[in-house]
């Protein structure tokens, strides 16, 4: 019988512990399973009884690669329960902080995790021997993102400045001047990175994704907007749970999210870009077009180019924010705790990050719900493996394993978030 099981025992160059199992029948992939065995850390349980002011710092610890995303979703959710709306320079600084995280996280993925797939290396560090300039540029770009985080937040990982109502401390205008100089270099480096990645070879793998991302009337989305899809979904973040189901499957410690109206969907750079192309700044739009992208990108392998375009946008946007920055009168507004429900969705580097908190009159959290982007993308990743995996089945085992890993890595899964290594397991029967 020409049936077999293909296993990727360990998925590498991804964040967290996971594996892949493919069930092959008559030369076709019948089932593809992304297996996640990251130990559950039970954040939604341990948040109960904590003070609302602690939500940003505690949830940041879900992910060391995108702590700002957790801080942003948490702080905006809590603020929505309290009826606080931040505006002006404080709102702009939160966008700037997020720019830093996008640059740092995307530059890491592009340079050290994803590019080695296209150029045939086991790691970015191996790649550096023959592509030293590209690797150094990518690392310096990553550092520019980290510089934003360190300046606004005190440190790159788990920054300490985000506070309900604003920030604990905001920078002086003059503190931002040296950062702007580094970001001008970074914007050029990002432009070069778009060109570099656009020259890679991409397999012909397009499919009709259901994309889900935030949309904002005037901005490329970070912290605000309605949740929209290319299939007509257009809802406020507060309606998320009415439209999206999370179910638990035995093979995964991460819950699987599905649209009630239509199954698997994809969040993240491809979705954000395709739903918001016209909101990118002119330099980012031009670079995307010059790199051969249209206003919509449906080839997951090309996500590396889209990430580079988003890095370029984030550098450009950071420079705009710094140029327009005026120091606020106060770093944060005062508030009185009150009971209520608070919901927010923001755009983590990997996609939509949903938080909901129920808060008691004493200002403590009584219920928490967090839906990370990788949990939402699991079903779409499995669909990619099923659709695109078949054409790679004739490859020798090692190359097949590498292709399957790449099919997962295309979406930069963050498995620590969703609940490291991918296991490839191919079952033929």
């Amino acid at each position, binding site marked *: 019988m020409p049936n077999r099981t293909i296993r990727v025992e360990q998925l590498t160059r991804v964040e967290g512990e996971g594996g892949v199992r493919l069930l092959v029948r008559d030369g076709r992939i019948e089932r593809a399973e992304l297996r996640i065995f990251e130990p559950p850390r039970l954040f939604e349980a341990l948040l109960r009884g904590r003070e609302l002011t*602690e939500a940003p710092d505690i949830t940041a610890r879900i992910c060391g690669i995108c702590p700002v995303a957790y801080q942003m979703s948490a702080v905006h959710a809590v603020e929505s329960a309290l009826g606080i709306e931040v505006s002006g320079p404080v709102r702009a600084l939160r966008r700037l902080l997020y720019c830093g995280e996008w640059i740092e996280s995307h530059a890491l993925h592009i340079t050290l995790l994803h590019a080695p797939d296209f150029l045939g290396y086991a790691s970015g560090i191996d790649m550096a021997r023959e592509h030293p300039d590209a690797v150094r540029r990518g690392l310096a770009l990553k550092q520019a993102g980290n510089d934003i985080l360190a300046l606004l937040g005190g440190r790159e990982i788990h920054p300490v400045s985000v506070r309900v109502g604003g920030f604990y401390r905001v920078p002086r205008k003059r503190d931002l001047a040296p950062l702007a100089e580094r970001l001008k270099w970074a914007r050029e480096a990002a432009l070069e990175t778009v060109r570099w990645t656009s020259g890679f070879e991409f397999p012909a793998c397009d499919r009709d994704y259901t994309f889900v991302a935030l949309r904002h009337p005037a901005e490329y989305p970070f912290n605000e907007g309605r949740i929209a899809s290319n299939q007509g979904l257009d809802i406020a973040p507060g309606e998320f749970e009415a439209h999206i189901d999370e179910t*638990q499957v035995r093979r995964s410690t991460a819950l699987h999210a599905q649209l009630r109206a239509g199954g698997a969907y994809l969040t993240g750079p491809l979705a954000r870009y395709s739903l918001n192309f016209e909101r990118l700044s002119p330099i980012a739009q031009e670079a995307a077009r010059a790199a051969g992208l249209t206003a919509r990108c449906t080839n997951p392998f090309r996500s590396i180019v889209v990430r580079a375009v988003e890095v370029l946008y984030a550098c450009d946007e950071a420079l705009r924010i710094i140029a327009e920055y005026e120091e606020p009168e106060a770093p944060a507004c005062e508030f009185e705790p009150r009971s209520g429900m608070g919901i927010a969705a923001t755009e983590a580097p990997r996609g939509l990050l949903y938080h909901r908190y129920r808060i008691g009159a004493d200002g403590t959290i009584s219920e928490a719900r967090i839906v990370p982007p990788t949990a939402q993308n699991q079903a779409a990743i499995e669909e990619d493996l099923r659709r695109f995996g078949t054409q790679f089945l004739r490859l020798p085992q090692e190359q097949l394993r590498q292709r399957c890993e790449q099919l997962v890595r295309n979406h930069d899964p963050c498995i620590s978030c969703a609940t490291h290594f991918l296991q490839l397991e191919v079952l033929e029967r």
Partner: protein
Amino acid sequence: MRTPKAKPRLAVWKFASCDGCQLSLLDCEPQLLTLGEALELAYFPEAATAPMRGHYDLSLVEGSISTPRDAERIVAIRRRSTRLVTIGACATAGGIQALRNFADIREFTAAVYAHPAYIRTLATSTAIAEHVPVDFELRGCPVNKRQLLEVISAFLAARRPAVPTHSVCIDCKSLGRACVLVAHGTACLGPVTQAGCGAICPAFQRGCYGCYGPQESPNTLALGRALATLGLDRAHLLRLYRSFNANAEAFRTESERHAQ
């Protein structure tokens, strides 16, 4: 010139954690490629595709032990490692996920999963040193990347790492910062928390929240009296000690005083 085989072999292992501490290694941007020259990054799944094979001269371990499988895995890793260094609050104290140690694990799991029976987890989240001998513990949530480089350099040179064990309070004083506790009446764990972060929270006008765990001789009783004069109730004090290093002995003991 040394051949690649002569380089010490470094491995990076992950248990229950956020990945932030091993990311600190990748955040050493200017030094990363130099590090790649000095060491063989023999096993680092986050950054490189390479199978687990042979013996490792230095193992960096991130994360806590919270599942039966991980409790077995760490024993196997210890056998493969000449030196084993734990990095971060999860690996050195159990991390924020050790809050389960003070709760009912079945209730906790049922609060998150519809089918708790599918989930295999231990009732506790514990430090690596509670399971195997550890050569050095580097504190922090996350670790400080300069301290991480110091630890790696020290092991390459076969010396003890120079990592201070005094309090955040001492750092604040030596940096000439105004005390947020005394001057602003802000609750601060700086007097009982180990330095390492650069005393960043007081610099951001907030109190230290204990990322580096208890310093070598923490006077939690004296701090407790000072915090009580600020009007902090027991629930607040309990939360203050029960965060990222809740299961570190001095913080756990102090928190238990406020638990009833």
